[in-house]
């Protein structure tokens, strides 16, 4: 019995190991999450949910840093997509930034997308 208790204590102490530093688990591809978000969207009229296709970092563009040939820019700093390779970034802070009220989520993995679609098809046909 003593051996069992010791083994149990030792085992339980070992079980704390994964909490050592990180939990690099991702939750993007969970089918359940997308289903829940869809339902939550339905009940909470203030929160809209949308899936993202692609995100492009926004860079600060100072008028002096704009490469010639680009569309004319007003003096001071402005924000531009980094996909516009003809502009150079600046370190200037632009003050408060605008944030959408939409809750944006990454799409689930292809196999999980199919499962969700199949589930939705079954629900609709009933």
């Amino acid at each position, binding site marked *: 019995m003593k051996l069992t208790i010791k083994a149990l204590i030792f085992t339980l102490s070992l079980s704390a190991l994964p909490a050592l530093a990180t939990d690099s688990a991702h939750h993007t591809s*969970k089918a359940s999450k997308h289903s829940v978000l869809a339902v939550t969207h339905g009940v909470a009229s203030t929160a809209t949910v949308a899936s993202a296709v692609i995100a492009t970092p926004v860079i600060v563009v100072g008028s002096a840093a704009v490469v010639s040939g680009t569309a004319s820019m007003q003096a001071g700093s402005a924000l531009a997509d980094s996909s516009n390779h003809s502009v150079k970034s600046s370190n200037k802070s632009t003050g408060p930034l605008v944030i959408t009220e939409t809750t944006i989520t990454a799409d689930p993995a292809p196999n999980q997308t199919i499962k969700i679609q199949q589930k939705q098809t079954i629900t609709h046909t009933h």
Partner: protein
Amino acid sequence: MKKYILIAFISIFSVTVNAGSQANQPATIAPEKIIEFAKDVEKYAAQRGARAFIIARVGRPANELPKGIHYTHTAIAVYSTIQLDNGKTAKGYAIHNLYQVDGKPNRSQLIQDYPVDFFWGAQQLKAGIIIPSDEIQTRLINLIATGKNTQLHNPKYSVIANPMNSQKQNCTEYTLDLINAAIYETTNTPQLKANTRAHFTPQRVKTSRIKLMFGSILMEDVTTKDHSGKIATTTFGAINNYLKQYDLAKHSVNFYGKGDIETL
């Protein structure tokens, strides 16, 4: 009797591994609260003009966290133009993560997600936020926008990766490597690791050698092979200390939602 002990031992470990490193964890906090909290984090950072910031979550119950470690996953959030599947575009933060591969806990991949995805499996509505200096923000954005961040990814994953060498990497070490690449304007890993050894102080992981030995035997994502001497790894707190030490952090907080913050 020994047979039962062994079964108990293995079953407890199986539960632990599943709870820690797999993607299929259910949300432990009500989804509406996660949605609201994730948006609050975005708005808080945006109000301070953060174009890029370091973001962290608590993925374990507080009582399971080792002493001195407050966050379990760290990444870089970048203010972005996001094209939506409904054809519209929106402004918000995209989060650039290193995550473990499903079913292969000792391997990692780079995945970009969004605040609600990031906090989905959180155990507490608490976020770590470090807004670096404007110059570091710009350089981090350039690093990611040009795809050079991928050059710093090492897919060999360890929960307690040693940041002083490039043998293993976890999410927080990857974040540190991005920050150092931005500071030194290089993606040369040997140079970055030399700089890390010279200037960065990792956090000691206070646990027994025996635990670590058994952990490394039984769990694929725990190894001490990349360490010599005492075990120390990269944490959100260690990154904050590092940036503050060299005057590269503008604003560091524990964020609890609705403006409830604790300055670090």
